[in-house]
């Protein structure tokens, strides 16, 4: 029959710690140099695209584009609000119709 007192528990715990240590001594070597360097080069290329000059360039273009879009929208809104309508005013049309006799007598 298996003992399950504290001594057994300590022995089992000690065996597991030893097993952990033994495992770490036999871990096989890894070689990730090629794969990591491929990712590192890719990352470095992406970073190099973001030099201060590029960032400034991008900033100027973005600001110009946004400003142009805002100006265009404001202009369209102003024109559509203030420009007199091309359609005939119904009140004026009604007045004109009233002033003209229906049958020329």
């Amino acid at each position, binding site marked *: *029959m*298996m*003992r*399950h007192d504290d001594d*057994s*528990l*300590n*022995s*089992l*715990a*000690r*065996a*597991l*710690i*030893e*097993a*952990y*240590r*033994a*495992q*770490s001594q036999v*871990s*096989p*070597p*890894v*070689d*990730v*140099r090629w*794969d*990591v*360097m491929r*990712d*590192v*080069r890719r*990352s*470095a290329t992406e970073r190099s695209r973001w030099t201060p000059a590029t960032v400034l360039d991008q900033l100027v273009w973005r600001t110009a584009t946004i400003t142009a879009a805002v100006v265009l929208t404001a202009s369209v809104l102003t024109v559509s609000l203030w420009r007199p309508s091309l359609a005939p005013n119904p009140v004026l049309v009604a007045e004109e119709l009233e002033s003209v006799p229906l049958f020329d007598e």
Partner: protein
Amino acid sequence: MSHAAVLVDRGIIPGFHLSMANDPLPVMSASAEESGLVRRVREGETERFADLIDQYQNHVGRIVARRVPADRVRELVHEVFVKAYVNLAQFSESVPFEHWLAGIAVRTCYDFWRARSREEVPVSALSDEHTRWIEQTLSSHSDRQFRDQTARQEARELLGWALARLSPENRAVLTLVHLDGYSVREAADMLGWSLVNVKVRAHRARKALRELLRHTLAEKAHDAT
């Protein structure tokens, strides 16, 4: 002095005691050679990073291999080095590069187990071989017999089985403090957690593992009767 040797010195190898040492870390900083290498990579000499990989990949491999399944080691070592490259600006040179990398490796493994716990991967049950291994280990008559037992595959499987039943946080702390033998302060530095958090976790993790083993022993004793 290796961590295993420190562990023996502190007397925490034989039992399953918790090292609550708050001793300050020994003052060590990056060597001039590795600092120079890191600086060159930061300044744009990307290819020099390969030298750092060559120098430390086995060190990182050992840390990762102790923490994750064998078939995921390579992938995680790769991830550790990519993270190291991306965060190279944060390397302060006040600690050796090796320690800084170890911290990244430990946190990467912790993230691996957190992701895995969300996936709810089922944990396999103990087999008859494991039960037999426990019986044989507990009835070992000599140190040599005991050591032979610990070198067996069943021992590693049983440890993996027990760790898989702990939360990722408990697992990370238990591995660092109780199995690797790092002090609470060292573990806190590596995980980026507070000292108190690591102390509490270490205590809870140890208790959880002991309960698990106690339950397993009781169950096997019950089966035997």
